């Protein structure tokens, strides 16, 4: 091993810009601690890998295939979209584009249709990230002649042989992904990073709501904020709660009600503040606060 000037990690950090990237991630994504931790780990690995290369210690290209599991609305798709950019900046993905597909894009309708279709998608995703949403639909246990199995085999082959050309990210609800992996054990072992997305806490959801409102140039009044805190707590106990997605939908409805409230009084002089602020009645009109449970759809 030849004598080399010692390398500090600081210079490497600055070169890759990992710090700014992670700070940006912290700012733009609320909560999601396990995800951020894993990205940090991957970034660190890359950093060490660069240093190792400079010292002449070769290492294999790290396996980056990932699987995101979690309840509805916990940000799996948003993170996957972001992941392509992150890996690109870390130099682990050459083009940094994302190809987002579901079962329909991979599995054909008749014999001999699946392989070209799957290959086409894989080729499009080369150099970037292939994101397979609701991956468990690929495998249908109830039909043994289903073409999904063929797509899975091609996928596994490429995931194994062209690890440096393509990163595959699977996403889906936790329990169904577990079942999927049980019937395709080879899949689980080829994925290095299994990341579970936790449900958001109430305060995280509130922060998210305020962030979403700010992006659309709205804001809560102080009373409305308190009402929304109650809204989140109540909404959580109701069926079909899907985390951030529920919040986004709630905000959309609240904006409708606010618009309606303003339209009802057309002679009033409006200030920008009136237009931007969301008041308590807009929130309290929600059926979540209704005393009787809503009728089943």
């Amino acid at each position, binding site marked *: 091993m030849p004598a080399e000037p010692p390398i500090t990690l600081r210079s490497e950090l600055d070169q890759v810009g990992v710090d700014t990237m992670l700070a940006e991630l912290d700012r733009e994504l609320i909560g999601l601690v396990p995800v951020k931790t894993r990205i940090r780990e991957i970034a660190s690995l890359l950093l060490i890998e660069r240093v190792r290369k400079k010292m002449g210690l070769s290492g294999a290209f790290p396996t980056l295939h990932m699987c995101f599991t979690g309840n509805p609305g916990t940000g799996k798709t948003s993170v996957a979209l972001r992941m392509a950019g992150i890996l690109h900046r870390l130099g682990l993905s*050459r*083009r940094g*584009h994302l190809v987002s597909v579901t079962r329909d894009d991979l599995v054909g309708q008749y014999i001999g249709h699946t392989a*070209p279709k799957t290959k086409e998608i*894989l*080729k*499009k995703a*080369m*150099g*970037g990230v292939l994101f397979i949403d609701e991956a468990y639909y690929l495998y249908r246990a109830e039909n043994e002649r289903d073409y999904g199995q063929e797509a899975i085999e091609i996928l596994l082959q490429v995931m194994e042989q*062209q690890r440096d*050309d*393509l990163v595959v990210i699977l996403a889906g609800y936790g329990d169904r992904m577990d079942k999927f992996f049980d019937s395709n054990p080879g899949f689980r072992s080829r994925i290095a990073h299994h990341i579970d997305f936790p449900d958001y806490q109430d305060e995280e959801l509130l922060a998210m709501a305020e962030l979403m409102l700010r992006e659309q140039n709205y804001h809560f009044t102080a009373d409305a904020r308190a009402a929304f805190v109650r809204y989140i707590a109540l909404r959580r106990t109701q069926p079909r709660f899907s985390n951030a997605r529920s919040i986004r939908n709630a905000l959309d409805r609240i904006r409708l009600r606010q618009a309606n409230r303003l339209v009802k009084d057309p002679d009033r002089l409006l200030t920008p503040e009136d237009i931007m602020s969301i008041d308590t009645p807009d929130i309290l009109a929600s059926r979540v606060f209704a005393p009787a449970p809503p009728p089943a759809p």
Partner: protein
Amino acid sequence: MRITQGCFSFLPDLTDAQIGKQIQYCLDQGWAVNIEFTDDPHPRNTFWEMWGLPMFDLADSAAVMLELGQCRRTYGERYIRLSAFDSSHGWESVKISFIVNRPKQEPGFRLERQEADSRNIRYTTSAYVADRPEGERYGG
């Protein structure tokens, strides 16, 4: 006799890394890359057979290299060329084509002289391999 047609054909054969870089250039220009093969080396044979479909919407050369690898496995003893098609309005034509694979043995061409009327001579060339039926030339 070494066939020279398309770009780079007077250079030594391109390595895979060099081919990859050329492909990446094509993709970066927004051209669709095609793989074509033939066992008829005559220069007037411009329409070669296509390996699969034209590859639109690719981002990275690894995808074309994957297909090229498969084409070589099947037709390693034939000529394989890449061509890149520019679909933008006003062009709609092939912008570049170059040979990426050739048979180990290239027997070359025979020159035929035909004695025509009043002591005129007509010349034509034909490939030695073209004497054999398609698919049985170049031993593969």
